[in-house]
């Protein structure tokens, strides 16, 4: 059985509600999955695979480490030999200790930044590295370039990111596997009526400069100025929370904007079901799956043309696209959608259909399993005792 270690920053990640689902679906397809996470959070449901903590101060206890001591020793010896100074060698051993005793066929790094932080892991575990290039990685192109060199295979979630990887000079094979969301769980409520009263808008995901939340709040203020009764829920957290609250306060709509932190899956689903439209005011690619979750729940999306959003949302069919950094255009598109209940319903139905057809967890799991299978078989084909190590430099 192929054993894949998924190396990530935090697990479970509240900003990616579908992550556990697709990893579980990959495991159900006969691939052994375990997660190495820098931060391990409390899962809200049972997780059918092992989750291990990486990083300083995180060890698995003397007994556990003693079990794999032999393997760990060989790898620690490598660190001692290769490190520029004994001090750095000791630091590296302390850091990598939790992972040293493990043996996997493939390491899947969840982002270029994670690979940059754990760049010795492929060499220590003698496993090929697959790296997901994320939109957030693009903020630091040097990190991206070094990660693209260090990896054996690159994974992207959109054609936009594929183009970015090529722009950055990636010479490694690249697979495009769109994000997936649990379309059976995130679905419209049975026999639900469109919400009445105030128009309800929602956004969810990380509040970073990439998601442009300030522009969304400005657009909502412009709608209120036009006389529309609008309420806006921002479900997420991040550096730009301050900007959201300040903009809402300065534009006099603090009573209409609710900023809550990440919502549990059920609460998020219920909130999405009660909304008229989803807003994504991105100025750059951000890796969020909010627009997909909304579409799976039958909610039309009004978003900007940044990053992969035009691939997630079909303009005029499942939502509308606006110019990025232009709150006036975003407000115009929101007004057009909200002002036409017939169109709102039709877009919602088409959004649901498209999400199921293109962005379901099972489709992602299927494609990921085939990528994992192809990479690990390439490793076996190199020969016993050898690995398909490319670009370790």
């Amino acid at each position, binding site marked *: 059985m192929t054993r894949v270690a998924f190396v990530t920053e935090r697990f479970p990640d509240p900003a990616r509600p579908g992550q556990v689902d697709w990893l579980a679906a990959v495991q159900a397809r006969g691939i052994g999955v375990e997660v190495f996470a820098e931060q391990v959070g409390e899962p809200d449901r049972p997780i059918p695979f092992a989750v291990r903590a990486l990083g300083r101060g995180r060890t698995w206890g003397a007994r556990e480490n003693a079990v794999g001591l032999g393997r760990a020793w060989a790898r620690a010896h490598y660190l001692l030999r290769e490190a520029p100074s004994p001090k750095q060698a000791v630091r590296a051993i302390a850091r990598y200790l939790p992972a040293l005793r493990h043996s996997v066929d493939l390491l899947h790094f969840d982002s270029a930044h994670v690979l940059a932080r754990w760049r010795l892991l492929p060499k220590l575990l003698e496993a090929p590295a697959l790296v997901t290039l994320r939109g957030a990685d693009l903020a630091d192109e040097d990190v991206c370039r070094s990660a693209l060199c260090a990896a054996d295979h690159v994974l992207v979630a959109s054609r936009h990111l594929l183009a970015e990887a090529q722009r950055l000079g990636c010479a490694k094979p690249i697979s495009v596997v769109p994000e997936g969301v649990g379309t059976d769980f995130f679905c419209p409520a049975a026999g639900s009526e469109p919400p009445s009263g105030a128009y309800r808008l929602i956004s969810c995901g990380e509040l970073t400069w990439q998601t442009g939340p300030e522009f969304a709040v400005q657009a909502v203020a412009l709608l209120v100025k036009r006389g529309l009764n609008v309420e806006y829920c921002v479900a997420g957290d991040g550096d730009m929370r301050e900007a959201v*609250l300040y903009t809402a306060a300065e534009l006099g709509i603090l009573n209409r904007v609710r900023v809550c932190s990440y919502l549990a899956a059920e609460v998020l689903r219920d909130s999405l079901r009660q909304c008229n439209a989803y807003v994504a005011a991105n*100025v*750059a690619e951000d890796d969020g799956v909010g627009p997909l979750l909304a579409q799976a729940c039958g909610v039309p999306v009004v978003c900007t043309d940044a990053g992969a959003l035009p691939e997630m949302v079909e303009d005029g069919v499942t939502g509308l696209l606006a110019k990025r950094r232009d709150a006036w255009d975003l407000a115009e598109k929101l007004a057009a959608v909200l002002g036409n209940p017939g169109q709102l319903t039709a877009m919602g139905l088409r959004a649901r259909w498209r999400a199921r057809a293109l962005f379901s967890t099972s489709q992602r799991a299927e494609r990921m399993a085939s990528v994992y299978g192809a990479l690990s078989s390439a490793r076996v084909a190199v020969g016993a005792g050898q690995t398909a190590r490319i670009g370790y430099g």
Partner: protein
Amino acid sequence: MPASHRARLMVVVGAFPSLSETFLYTMLKDLQCSGVQVLVRARHRGTSPHQTAWCRNVRYLPSEELALPLRMAILLPVAAWVMLRRPATFVRAVRVLRRHTCGLRELVDQAYLIAPLLVASADAVYFAMGNMAAKYALYTMIRPNAIVALIGSDAHTHPLLSDTYRERLKLALLNAAAVRCVCEDTKRRAERLVGGSLPNAVVVPIAVDAAHLSGPDPSRVVRRPAQGEVRLVSTGRLHWCKGLEHGMMALRELLNRGVACRWRIVGEGPYRAALECAVRDLGLGDVVSLVGARDAAGIREELLSADIMFHPTVADAISNSVLEGMALGLPVVAGDAGGIREGVRHGETGLLIPPRDWRAMADALEVLARNPDLRARMGAAGREAVLCRFTPRHQDKAIAALLAMVGGTR
């Protein structure tokens, strides 16, 4: 207090030196020159291109990240010293700590924070920012010599983020001997925060570095546009509240209208990646330069070789960058946010535009770009306005009054 007594002012800051807060250094330097003993107490070391060697009395407060036994080892002798040397202060501190903390852990944490300030003998303790005052709020209840300065984000944006911060800042503002607000707008926000008037609050505007005010009047110098382009400049921390992304939209619009221009953005900060993305995205690579941080001389040079000070801010008190631009004879195009209008008079020293409205920004920039005479007129009026209100002499006088108010006479 004898008339010959030199006032000792303890200034509590976050990082020292720091990339931003140049106006604070200007103030401390001027105070030191005028005979006040300035003692800087910083929470941690920072980096800055600004020269801070003039400030010799800098100490760093004990780290809050030490393990509890180590912190106890530091706290106990300090507490014993206060008990023996200042018994009244000790008794008051114990009372305040018991009343305003929940549990032993919080009591120890707060005692560890304020103890180093109780040991120092200063006539007044100046919390250079509202967030410092909120952190050391209990100190303001123990000793009656605290001056709290509100400089912008500490009163504008931070109170929205956390209830605890809001409550702590409120406590500090109500108990401080004096509150220095850099503009009327900040004072209004402070009063809104405490839910009433603040009799101890005084508006003391910031002062421009004397180096910008000396020498020949730069507004009289005819600024020749380089190759027919109008040169915009912005200085300050790269932060979302500076609204530079909106400014870039305005610049794109301006270029689309056929106005040739260049924009140099001087400063560093957490928003750089966003701005680099906007530059790429809007195709402004040839006209916008993110030049990074510069020292005072470098900033002066940048300002002297520009035609317009562009400050598309969305959240600000009174901007030091804008005042520096005005001091060097630059007309200003700025977002009408916070206390900006207290520094820039619309139509006289610059043009104010609604924050985030990039079309209005482009209109204002176009007006000034096409009219060199108007630029020169506004530049001269701007320098005049700075000389009338924002010089070190004005600030020095106001700070002296503030020190007298808390008992640290000059």
